[in-house]
C-alpha cells in the first residue's frame, strides 16, 4: 500500500506551521478523514490519473494549499544575485521554483526564458555572460536535464565563464512519486558535472540554500570565473514556510581579482623594457572593456606587437600594433614573450606536426624569456585535460591578467628612459608598416574566388561587413577563417566574445541567442556567422529567439559538412594510402541538403536562402537586418566554400 507523504517526519514538521494558513485558504473546515477503500497496487510507473482517483477525497489529507513555499524564498535569493534571466527547459523537479519565478516573482529578475534543450539553456547563459560580464541562471533537472547540459557546462568551464546553475532533485526517497520521479532523482546530482564546475552544494534547509547560493555566486565571479551549481531539493522548494521572516538573504562581497606579485611584476617590466623584440600574446586577457584599455596602454608604452589569440576581444583589429596575422614569425623572433591568460602557452611557442609520427619543435629563439600571467595557474583539475601541455616559463604569475596590468603598466612607465622611448618609436613605426601590409594582403587574398559559387568565406564576410559597419554591431560567433578579424574594424569590447572554450559543437547558435539577449537592452545589432553542423545540434534555440523576440542576425556558413572532420578523414585516408573518395561518409551533411531558411521560418524567424550567387548576398543581408531592427531574429542561409 502506498503511504501518504503526510506521515513523513519532514512533512509533519512543515504542516504544523502551515495548518492555519492552509485551513484559511480552504475557507471551510478541514474535511474529516474518512476510511478509504484499500489502494490498489499500481502498475509500475503508472500513477492513477482517472477521474475517480482525482475527485475522491484523499485519506487523511488535511492541508492542500499554501501561499508561502520554500521556492518563493529561493526566488528572493536569486533576486539578490541580480540574475536577469533564467534559461530553462521545464522540468518537474523544479516545478515549484518555476512557478515561484513566474508568479511570486512576476517573471522579472529572473525572467524565465523557455529553451528546447538544456544544452541550449547553458550555451545561452554562456553567450549572455560574455557580453554582460555576469552570470545568467539556468534551471535543469538534476538527472536527465543535467546530462543534456553537461557538454555546455564543460565549454563554459574551459572558457572560464560564470553561470549559476540550479538543478532540481528529490533527495528524500520516501517523498518521490512512484515512477518517473525515481528515474529523475539522484543521490548526488552534482557528481555528473563536478569535474567541470568550480563549486556545488546540496542545501538541506532554506537558510542553507541562501548561504550556499551567495557563496556559489561569489566563487563563480572570482577569477578564474567558472560555472557553479546548487541543488534545489524538491521538498525544500514545495514545503510551506512557517516563519519566512527568520530566513535571511545573504549580502555578497566579491573579493578583488588576484594580482601578480610585486616581484614578478617588477621583473616582467624590466624584461619588457629592455627587450629588443618583445611580443604580447593575449587569449582570455580582457575580461572587461577595461582590460582591453589596459592592454592598449601597455602595448603603446612599449610599442610592442600584440598577438590576439581571440579568447576574448583583447585588442582592436585595426590598431597598428595588432600583429595577429604574423603571430608565428613574431614569436620566433622574440626575445621576451608575455602571455596573458593563454589557454596553450606550449602550443604558442612550439610547432606541431600531425603526421604518422607526431612531432614537435620549439619555434622560439634560444634564451627567449617566457612570462605568463594567468588565473589558470590558480585552478587546475585533474580529470579533464583542458590545461594543455606543460610549458617551461621563466616568470609565472598565478594571477588575473587584467587585474595585474595596471601595476605592470606603472612599473613599465618607471623604467622607460628617453633612449628606450626612441627605440620603441622606431619599432612602432616598423610594426605600423607591417600592419598596413597585412591589411592590404588580406584584401588581396579576399579577391580570390570573389565571384565563386559556393560563396567564399571572404566574400561572405566582406558583404556582411558592408551592411553592418555603420551600425552598433556585436559579432557573437567565431571569426570564420579569420576573415572578420582581417577585414573588419573591431574597436569595442562587445564587438567580439571569443569562442566556445571546449570546442564542443552545438555551442554557436544558443550562445549567439544568449549574447543577443544581453545586447538587446543596449540596442546593438547582434551578428552571428552560424555553422550548419553546429545549428543542427539543437536548432530549437531559433524558436526561443523568436518566442522571446530576441533580435539576432544569423548568416549561415553552410558548407554542408562537419568540415573539421572531413579534413581528419582525409588525413587518415591519405595516411593509410586508401584514397579519398569515401572521406565524405559520416562527415558531410548532404543528400538531402538542409534548407535552413525553411527550418528558421518554421520557428517564426524571418529567413532567406539558400543563397548561392554572391551577388544575391548583400541585398539578402540588408533585408534580414531590416527584420532584426524590427526586433526579430533573422537568418540568411548562404552556401559556402569549406573554409
Amino acid at each position, binding site marked *: 500500500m502506498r503511504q501518504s507523504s503526510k506521515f513523513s517526519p519532514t512533512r509533519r514538521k512543515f504542516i504544523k506551521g502551515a495548518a492555519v494558513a492552509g485551513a484559511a485558504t480552504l475557507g471551510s473546515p478541514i474535511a474529516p478523514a474518512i476510511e478509504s477503500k484499500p489502494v490498489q497496487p499500481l502498475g509500475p510507473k503508472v500513477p492513477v490519473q482517472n477521474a475517480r482517483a482525482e475527485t475522491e477525497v484523499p485519506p487523511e489529507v488535511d492541508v492542500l494549499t499554501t501561499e508561502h513555499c520554500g521556492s518563493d524564498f529561493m526566488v528572493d535569493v536569486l533576486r539578490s544575485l541580480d540574475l536577469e534571466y533564467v534559461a530553462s527547459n521545464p522540468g518537474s523537479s523544479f516545478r515549484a521554483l518555476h512557478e515561484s519565478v513566474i508568479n511570486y516573482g512576476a517573471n522579472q529578475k529572473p525572467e524565465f526564458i523557455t529553451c528546447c534543450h538544456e544544452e541550449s539553456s547553458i550555451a545561452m547563459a554562456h553567450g549572455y555572460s560574455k557580453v554582460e560580464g555576469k552570470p545568467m541562471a539556468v534551471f535543469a533537472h538534476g538527472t536527465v536535464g543535467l546530462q543534456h547540459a553537461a557538454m555546455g557546462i564543460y565549454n563554459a568551464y574551459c572558457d572560464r565563464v560564470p553561470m549559476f546553475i540550479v538543478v532540481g532533485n528529490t533527495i528524500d526517497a520516501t517523498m518521490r512519486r512512484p515512477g518517473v520521479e525515481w528515474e529523475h532523482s539522484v543521490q548526488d546530482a552534482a557528481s555528473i558535472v563536478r569535474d567541470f564546475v568550480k563549486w556545488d552544494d546540496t542545501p538541506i534547509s532554506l537558510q542553507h540554500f541562501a548561504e550556499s547560493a551567495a557563496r556559489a555566486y561569489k566563487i563563480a565571479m572570482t577569477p578564474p570565473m567558472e560555472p557553479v551549481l546548487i541543488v534545489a531539493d524538491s521538498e525544500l522548494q514545495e514545503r510551506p514556510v512557517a516563519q519566512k521572516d527568520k530566513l535571511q538573504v545573504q549580502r555578497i562581497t566579491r573579493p578583488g581579482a588576484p594580482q601578480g606579485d610585486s616581484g614578478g611584476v617588477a621583473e616582467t617590466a624590466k624584461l619588457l623594457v629592455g627587450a629588443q623584440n618583445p611580443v604580447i600574446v593575449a587569449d582570455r586577457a580582457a575580461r572587461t572593456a577595461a582590460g582591453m584599455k589596459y592592454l592598449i596602454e601597455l602595448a603603446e608604452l612599449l610599442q610592442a606587437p600584440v598577438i590576439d589569440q581571440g579568447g576574448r576581444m583583447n585588442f582592436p583589429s585595426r590598431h597598428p600594433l595588432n600583429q595577429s596575422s604574423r603571430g608565428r614569425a613574431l614569436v620566433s623572433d622574440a626575445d621576451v614573450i608575455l602571455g596573458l591568460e593563454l589557454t596553450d602557452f606550449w602550443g604558442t611557442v612550439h610547432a606541431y606536426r600531425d*603526421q604518422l609520427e607526431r612531432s614537435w619543435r620549439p619555434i622560439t629563439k634560444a634564451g627567449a624569456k617566457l612570462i605568463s600571467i594567468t588565473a589558470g595557474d590558480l585552478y587546475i583539475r585533474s580529470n579533464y585535460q583542458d590545461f594543455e601541455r606543460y610549458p617551461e616559463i621563466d616568470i609565472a604569475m598565478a594571477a588575473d591578467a587584467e587585474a595585474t596590468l595596471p601595476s605592470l603598466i606603472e612599473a613599465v612607465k618607471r623604467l622607460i628612459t628617453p633612449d628606450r622611448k626612441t627605440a620603441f618609436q622606431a619599432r612602432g613605426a616598423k610594426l605600423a608598416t607591417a600592419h598596413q601590409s597585412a591589411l592590404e594582403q588580406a*584584401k588581396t587574398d579576399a*579577391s*580570390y574566388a570573389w565571384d565563386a559559387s559556393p560563396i567564399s568565406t571572404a566574400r561572405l564576410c566582406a558583404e556582411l561587413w558592408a551592411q553592418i559597419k555603420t551600425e552598433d554591431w556585436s559579432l557573437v560567433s567565431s571569426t570564420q577563417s579569420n576573415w572578420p578579424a582581417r577585414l573588419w574594424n573591431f574597436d569595442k569590447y562587445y564587438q567580439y566574445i571569443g569562442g566556445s572554450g571546449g570546442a564542443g559543437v552545438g555551442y554557436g547558435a544558443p550562445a549567439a541567442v544568449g549574447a543577443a539577449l544581453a545586447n538587446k537592452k543596449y540596442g546593438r545589432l547582434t551578428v552571428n556567422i552560424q555553422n550548419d553542423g553546429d545549428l543542427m545540434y539543437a536548432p530549437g534555440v531559433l524558436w526561443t529567439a523568436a518566442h522571446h523576440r530576441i533580435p539576432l542576425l544569423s548568416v549561415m556558413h553552410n558548407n554542408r559538412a562537419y568540415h573539421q572532420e572531413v579534413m581528419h578523414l582525409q588525413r587518415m585516408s*591519405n595516411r593509410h594510402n586508401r584514397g579519398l*573518395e569515401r572521406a565524405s561518409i559520416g562527415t558531410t551533411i548532404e543528400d538531402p541538403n538542409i534548407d535552413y531558411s525553411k527550418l528558421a521560418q518554421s520557428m517564426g524567424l524571418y529567413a532567406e536562402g539558400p543563397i548561392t550567387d554572391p551577388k544575391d548576398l548583400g541585398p539578402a543581408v540588408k533585408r534580414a537586418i531590416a527584420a532584426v531592427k524590427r526586433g526579430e531574429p533573422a537568418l540568411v542561409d548562404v552556401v559556402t566554400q*569549406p573554409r
Partner: protein
Amino acid sequence: MSILIALVVVFAQTPTPRGNPEAGKALFAKIGCYQCHGREAQGSTATGPRLNQNPITYTRFVSYIRKPSGEMPPYTAKVVSDQQAADIFAFLQSLPKPAAVENIPLLK
C-alpha cells in the same frame, strides 16, 4: 654518391608532363584538395595556402604532395598518380588572376 647526384639532376630537370586542366579540376574536387585550399585554390589562413597564382615548379609541386614537410597529408602515387598530379598542376596553372582589389568596391 655519383649515382645519387645523377638521379637528383635528372629528377630536377624532369620536364612538366602535359596535364589536362579539366581533369585536374575534377580531381581537385574529387580527392579533396579543395577542402583545405578552396574550390578556386584561393587558400585559407586556417587550413591551407593559396595555390592560385602562387607559382611553384612542377617538380616542387610533386615533391611536396608526395612528402609534405608541414601539416598537409601526403598524397602517394598510390592515391594520386603522376599523370593525375600533372592534371592538377595544369588546373592550378590555368586559374585566372582575380580582379584587382581597386576594382572590387567592397575591398577598397
